[in-house]
């Protein structure tokens, strides 16, 4: 198999699938939409994967999970399978892999979730809410899902939420009327619009090609339509936008020495998440931040350095990266080490948007250079 053959197989699938994505769990292999994932990969020691070395990382990870990996005529394209599930791994970009599957979503995602959970050097993409919305606007909006739940990062016994107007907001709207509904939501509850899915379509009038896409908050695209080229264009756009964000974070905020000749300079500045409203329960937030649990998966030693101010010496339990935070009710400052991964920041941002305030944004300092 090569890329042309892959495109033909995927396009054939696209034409035959049911466009009712919401009922996908009911469909067996061959009937559900095409799914395409972005997986962010590092070498085992956390460093960047050298060009041409992604295949060995894939083989090692697959081997642990008894996945069968088959090479193709294209050195960056692999067929991966186990039981009923089949995937196409495209490792052309050694760090940001693209994974297509036509298999049943439950079976496919169980395999991918385990693969990522057990391999700390692999992770999903975590597009922030506004990036998802920007991608949606490149086509014709056809729906959205919002999944905001403030109770996740606060104690389970917390009962004050009964008095809160927007503590838990879960909305799913499919159809072209979604934009009208969304405009209303933006007026009265802008801080809860954490998109967990955006749906949109693209058309190509000359060829009659069309594609309907759903992008979710883990960078997964579901697709139905008749043009694999349009789908691959969308995948390429998502990959480009997401990769640019991650690289910008790393370039500006990895605190690292720059050594030129005998001169040494410390480059990089911490990045900041500003909280639009002060945290409702600062202590509970700090506790959950380093609870080691999903969704944040951070470990940390907390030092109180003032009233409502802590320093945290932390570890990202997914990648193992060493991090440190300064946290107050109004902002969170994050210090990344020289080899820290921007994806960690994206995952944290995504989860803060879904559980604290959807309008939280990253303040990325301008990249520095040595003059």
């Amino acid at each position, binding site marked *: 198999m090569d890329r042309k053959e892959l495109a033909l197989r995927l396009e054939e699938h696209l034409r035959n699938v049911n466009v009712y994505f919401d009922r996908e769990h009911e469909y067996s292999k061959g009937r559900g939409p095409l799914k395409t994932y972005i997986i962010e990969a590092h070498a*085992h*020691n*956390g460093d960047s994967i050298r060009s041409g070395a992604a295949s060995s990382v894939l083989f090692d990870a697959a081997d642990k999970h008894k996945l069968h990996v088959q090479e193709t005529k294209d050195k960056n394209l692999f067929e991966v399978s186990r039981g009923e599930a089949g995937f196409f791994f495209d490792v052309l970009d050694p760090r940001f892999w693209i994974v297509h599957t036509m298999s049943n979503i439950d079976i496919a995602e169980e395999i991918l979730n385990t693969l990522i*959970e057990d391999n*700390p050097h692999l992770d999903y993409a975590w597009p922030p809410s506004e990036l998802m919305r920007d991608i949606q606007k490149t086509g014709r909006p056809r729906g959205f899902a919002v999944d905001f739940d403030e109770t996740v990062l606060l*104690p389970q*016994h917390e009962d004050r939420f009964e008095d809160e107007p927007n503590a838990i907001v879960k909305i799913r709207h499919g159809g072209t009327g979604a934009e009208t509904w969304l405009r209303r939501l933006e007026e009265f509850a802008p801080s809860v619009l954490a998109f967990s899915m955006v749906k949109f379509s693209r058309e190509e009038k000359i060829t009659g090609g069309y594609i309907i896409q759903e992008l979710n908050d883990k960078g997964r695209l579901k697709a139905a339509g008749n043009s694999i080229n349009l789908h691959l264009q969308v995948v390429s756009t998502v990959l480009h936008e997401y990769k640019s964000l991650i690289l910008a974070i790393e370039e500006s905020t990895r*605190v*690292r*020495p720059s*050594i030129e*000749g*005998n*001169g*040494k*300079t*410390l480059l990089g*500045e*911490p990045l900041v998440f500003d909280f639009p409203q002060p945290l409702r329960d600062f*202590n509970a937030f*700090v*506790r959950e931040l*380093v*609870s*080691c*649990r999903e969704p944040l998966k951070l*470990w*940390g*030693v*907390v*030092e*109180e350095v*003032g009233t409502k*101010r802590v*320093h945290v*010496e*932390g*570890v990202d*339990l997914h*990648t*193992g*990266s*060493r991090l*440190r935070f*300064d946290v107050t009710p109004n902002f969170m*400052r994050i*210090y990344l*080490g*020289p080899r820290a991964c921007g994806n960690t920041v994206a995952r944290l941002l995504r989860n803060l948007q879904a559980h604290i305030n959807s309008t939280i944004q990253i303040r990325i300092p301008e990249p520095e250079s040595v*003059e």
Partner: protein
Amino acid sequence: MIEQPIIVPGVGTVEVDIICLNRVKNHAILWECKAGRTLGEKQAHVYSAIKAEDVQRTGNVTFPRPDTATIDVVYCCLSEHAKRISESFQRLALAPPVISFGSKAELFSGQIRAVDVQKRFMAGIDLPSLEDVPRFLLANTQTPKVDLARLLFPTLVSLLRKQVAKVSVRLVLEETFNDWSCMGTDLRRYLSDRFKDLILDLCKNELQEYASIVKASHSPSELFIEFSGGILGSDASSRTRAFQKFEKLAYGFIERIEKDKPYEPAKEAQSMWLPGFEPPFS
């Protein structure tokens, strides 16, 4: 360069807090940062006698054009102490530039040879409040052991998570201090010695089940930490529990170092949370 000792023959030694080198201008600024309002008289005399040659010979700095290299020595202090420090210099008949740090960083007295730097500090540079200044430099040669313990433990957890089998103390230091390669030799030695003590202590006590010390065959003073394999468990929930246990061990270790107490296996930290941060109803 951070915390770099410089010797002035016949006068004495100073440990320069920060050395900034401008390679284009062939000029270095040596910063002495005063936390309080008193001056060390001997230190002031050594600083006043430093020449570019001393910076090169004992400060590990290579100027692009050694023969014409120039330096400035600049003192900086909090704005409320600037007057007192400046007066102390007058009594010693010295007049180094003093930069005062308040809402701005500005030249309080003296002159800086580097004209552009002088102009910037004459005009004043806006500063954020002290608590909003990012923490780039985490340690110096006065940093107490307990603060280093707080920095060390998370690095070991990070390495455990990365499933590193064996690691040198040097790598632990590099992973902990982003500015490691910018540090002067004395500071590196100080941190290296303290880290070795703390690591030996941890491997004998809190982390005895998870890590052990191996000495390098070619150099017995060089230590490696060897982590036990598979200690994190095979499924996600047992891994989470393992890490939660490490949090508890970390707080116990920090508390023990702070109080300078021996390890008592049965007595782990009273609570894994700081006072005020305990989960409700725990």
